[in-house]
């Protein structure tokens, strides 16, 4: 079957692109491996600084009804295993969808931090805990430890607390080849300072501000209370790492050790804490496998999450007709993803000849992406602007 646009991934980016293109008259196919659209947006619940609660599920429901009204063809519970010239999108049930335009909006995967015992049932990636609590409405555990301090893990710690879970603490991962900066208290204070606009509590806000000065960072770590500091009532430990997870058939305990200001483990003072779930947060990285296998050039930009397909201002990759949007372009929030989806939907509608006034529409759509980026509540990487500048430079060189 031939479509005007095939979209892989029905998360916020994919859904917005589908709505934009279909409302301009395009025949759109939307593919996702989940039984329902929405992706990770479905699990998002947070209070916006100056307005109401952002409830992902509600936003997804309204987009879903638009998609139905517009007659977008949904292929749910289908995995895409390849894209062949020019372009054939291969589904795992043997079907193939043809189109001149393909949008890869497959989002991100979680970067693991291996810790001895991390394969024990009850140890999960932090995102899984969010899915369970906010979408499935099942507690990931009754006593949960969170390992890894970042915007996502702090957000989900709060999600779990709202769901009535006892979060026993947020800890550092142990210093090893895989945790790198995430095991370093000094680096983490500096990182928290970049999040101080999130301001989960006044003390953290203060630490955040102080943390911007290097000499104070050291002091901050030295004076950091050994029992942790509470964020929303949850102990946040900057001087303790989880060095092992214990349990045979399921998680029973975590082993916690004190660390110095550089994350080096103390020899003694190991303590065991009973838990039935441990969540590891190592950050997110864009899923690029489909783009890569389709021959799209990629670049490595740490601030955007690692390897990403090289794309231009209109979000087109180096393979003409293949576009990217959402976390496939670099790790940012859902609102940026949605605006990027709209941009791609607009660009493709224009190329297909469905709408007039191209340059003006594209300019507006680009401005919306930038506006959402500026207003983002959560910045996943403090160096995001640098990363974006690098990408733009590389993209210009390529062209």
């Amino acid at each position, binding site marked *: 079957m031939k479509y005007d646009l095939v979209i892989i991934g029905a998360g916020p980016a994919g859904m917005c692109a589908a709505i934009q293109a279909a409302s301009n008259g395009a025949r759109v196919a939307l593919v996702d491996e989940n039984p329902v659209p929405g992706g990770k947006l479905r699990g998002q619940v947070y209070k916006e600084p100056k307005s109401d609660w952002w409830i992902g599920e509600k936003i997804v429901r309204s987009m879903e009804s638009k998609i139905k009204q517009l007659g977008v063809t949904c292929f749910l519970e289908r995995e895409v295993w390849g894209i062949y010239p020019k372009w054939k999108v291969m589904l795992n049930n043997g079907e193939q969808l043809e189109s001149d335009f393909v949008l890869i909006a497959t989002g991100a995967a979680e970067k693991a931090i291996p810790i001895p015992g991390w394969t024990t049932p009850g140890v*999960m990636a932090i995102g899984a805990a969010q899915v369970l609590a906010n979408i499935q409405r099942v507690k990931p555990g009754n006593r949960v430890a969170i390992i890894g301090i970042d915007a996502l893990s702090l957000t989900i710690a709060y999600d779990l607390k709202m769901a009535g879970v006892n979060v026993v603490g947020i800890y550092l991962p142990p210093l090893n080849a895989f945790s790198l900066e995430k095991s370093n208290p000094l680096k983490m204070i500096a990182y928290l300072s970049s999040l101080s606009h999130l301001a989960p509590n006044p003390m953290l806000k203060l630490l955040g501000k102080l943390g911007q000065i290097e000499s104070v960072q050291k002091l901050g770590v030295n004076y950091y209370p050994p029992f942790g500091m509470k964020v929303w009532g949850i102990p946040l430990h900057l001087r303790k790492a989880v060095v092992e997870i214990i349990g045979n058939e399921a998680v029973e305990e975590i082993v916690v050790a004190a660390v110095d200001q550089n994350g080096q483990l103390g020899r003694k003072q190991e303590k065991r804490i009973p838990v039935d779930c441990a969540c590891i947060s190592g950050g997110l990285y864009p899923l690029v496998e489909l783009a890569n296998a389709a021959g799209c050039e990629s670049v490595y930009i740490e601030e955007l999450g690692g390897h990403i397909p090289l794309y231009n201002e209109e979000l087109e990759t180096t393979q003409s007709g293949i576009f990217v949007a959402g976390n496939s372009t670099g790790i940012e929030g859902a609102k940026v993803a949605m605006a990027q989806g709209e941009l791609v939907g607009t660009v493709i509608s224009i190329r297909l000849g469905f709408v007039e006034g191209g340059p003006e529409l594209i300019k507006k759509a680009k401005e919306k992406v930038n506006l959402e980026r500026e207003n983002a509540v959560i910045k996943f990487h403090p160096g995001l602007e640098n990363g974006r500048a690098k990408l733009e430079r590389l993209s210009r060189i390529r062209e």
Partner: protein
Amino acid sequence: MRIKKHPILESLERKEVQITYNGKSYLAFEGETIAAALLANQIRILRYTEKGKAPRGIYCGIGHCYECRVTVDDERSVRACITRVKDQMKIISQGIDADEI
């Protein structure tokens, strides 16, 4: 393990269904995933590994890692975290349990 009341999210109205896991019967809710339904019934082990026969459960929760794969109505390697329960669904863990049954 179920979250019945949430301060922000609306309660879900869902129909009860019955599933079996390794021959035992459990209650679940329509619309939820196999992994969530089993966890709500205190079940964390979803399979045993091929080599080490070690237990594994939910890891990524979004279909990327394939750790939660189970056999559903004779179809092997179905991802429990992104597959919804259906009434009378027959789920079997892979690995040693599956061999025994």
